[in-house]
């Protein structure tokens, strides 16, 4: 009887592993954003500039007969101007990058962190042992590890996804990443290997959406920190399928807006 009591107490206790603390609030499968106007606008990434502009346009009766696409384009243009205002001269020189120069398109090269984290489709969050959390993305079937053991980044060459250290602030998973090799961003710019990213993952109060707020700092490409947001919808039955049929196009055209 005492053994049973001891076992039940042990099972009821939360794991001592740092990865396990409030993980259950985020753990599981998340997928395409909810079919809402703001959700769709944030399917890749969005800024408060875009959200505020889109809401203002939708709240203006003068726009009721304009196509939604036109309002989205207006808000996106304002967002592009905002992002450009945050770029250094070095990054502005190639902004916005031509889609025809995208190595992901031309050569099926997997994306780096600053693009992968805004990829469409699923993100699956799973604890891995006591001190790691895995972020598994549907796009490219890519996996990142967040180290929850509190140790700093070990000396290592910069890599596609860098080295991520995580901690819990209440029910928010905060992930700080550095050691990312110079690459392209999700907002059609370039970044250097000095980029540092702080991601804050939070489940919405209704439990139905996962919100990401990501802050980028990079002395080479950004004059000041850039904050981007993203939304996923809770999708427990969704499954990540193999990503094994990427084919480079036979031809591309330069100078076409994405």
């Amino acid at each position, binding site marked *: 009887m005492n053994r049973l009591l001891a076992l039940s107490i042990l099972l009821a206790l939360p794991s001592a592993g740092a990865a396990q603390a409030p993980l259950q609030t985020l753990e599981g499968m998340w*997928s*395409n954003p909810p*079919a*809402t*106007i703001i959700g*769709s606008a944030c*399917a890749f990434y969005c800024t408060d500039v875009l959200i505020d502009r889109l809401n203002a346009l*939708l*709240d203006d*009766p003068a726009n*009721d007969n304009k196509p*939604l*696409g036109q309002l989205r384009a207006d808000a996106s243009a304002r967002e592009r101007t905002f992002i450009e205002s945050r770029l250094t001269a070095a990054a502005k020189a190639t902004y916005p990058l*031509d*889609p*025809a120069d*995208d190595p*992901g*398109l031309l050569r099926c090269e997997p994306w780096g962190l600053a693009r992968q984290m805004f*990829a*469409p*489709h*699923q993100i699956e969050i799973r604890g891995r042992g006591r001190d790691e959390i895995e972020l598994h993305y*549907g*796009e*490219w*079937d890519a996996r990142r590890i967040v180290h929850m053991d509190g140790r700093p980044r070990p000396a290592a060459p910069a890599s596609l996804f860098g080295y991520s250290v995580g901690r819990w602030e209440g029910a928010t998973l905060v992930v700080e990443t550095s050691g990312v090799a110079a690459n392209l961003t999700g907002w059609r710019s370039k970044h250097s290997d000095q980029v540092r990213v702080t991601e804050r993952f939070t489940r919405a109060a209704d439990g139905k959406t996962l919100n990401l707020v990501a802050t980028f700092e990079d002395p080479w490409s950004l004059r000041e920190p850039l904050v981007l947001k993203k939304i996923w919808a809770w999708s427990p039955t*969704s499954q990540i*399928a*193999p*990503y*094994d*049929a*990427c*084919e480079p*196009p*036979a*031809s*591309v*055209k*330069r100078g*076409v*807006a*994405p």
Partner: protein
Amino acid sequence: MRGRVVSLTLLAVVVSIRLAGAHHSFSAVYDSKRSVTVTGVVTQFRFVNPHALMSLEVTDKDGKVVTWVVEFAGRLNLSEVGWTADSIRSGEKLTVTGNPTHEPLPRLAFQRIVKADGSELRPGAAQRNDALEEERRERAKRRTPQP
């Protein structure tokens, strides 16, 4: 004759044809201002990522059989609107409308399929857009004071 190029339509307005959730910009490959319709017989449908692909044998006006490739959204977005690996079967005769490539290649970005029995397949983006328009109407209603 297994199929025939039916029409080449220059659209007057820019339509939203980007395959929903595309992993790259389609505009560098496909011309969003034009649509092409072809009729042919399916030789392969691959329900894969990043984009599903279909091969279609189309007989042109000179009687020459040309293999067209149709590119779709990826598995997730197609699955969300009910597609499976069996949604299109080899040997089926289909009429496909899509955006052509900038270069004159036998390749389309999917917009619409009409099967031999008249049933249609459309991108998931169309259903999503309907939901967004409904949300917009509701927002406008809430803004308007009710009598």
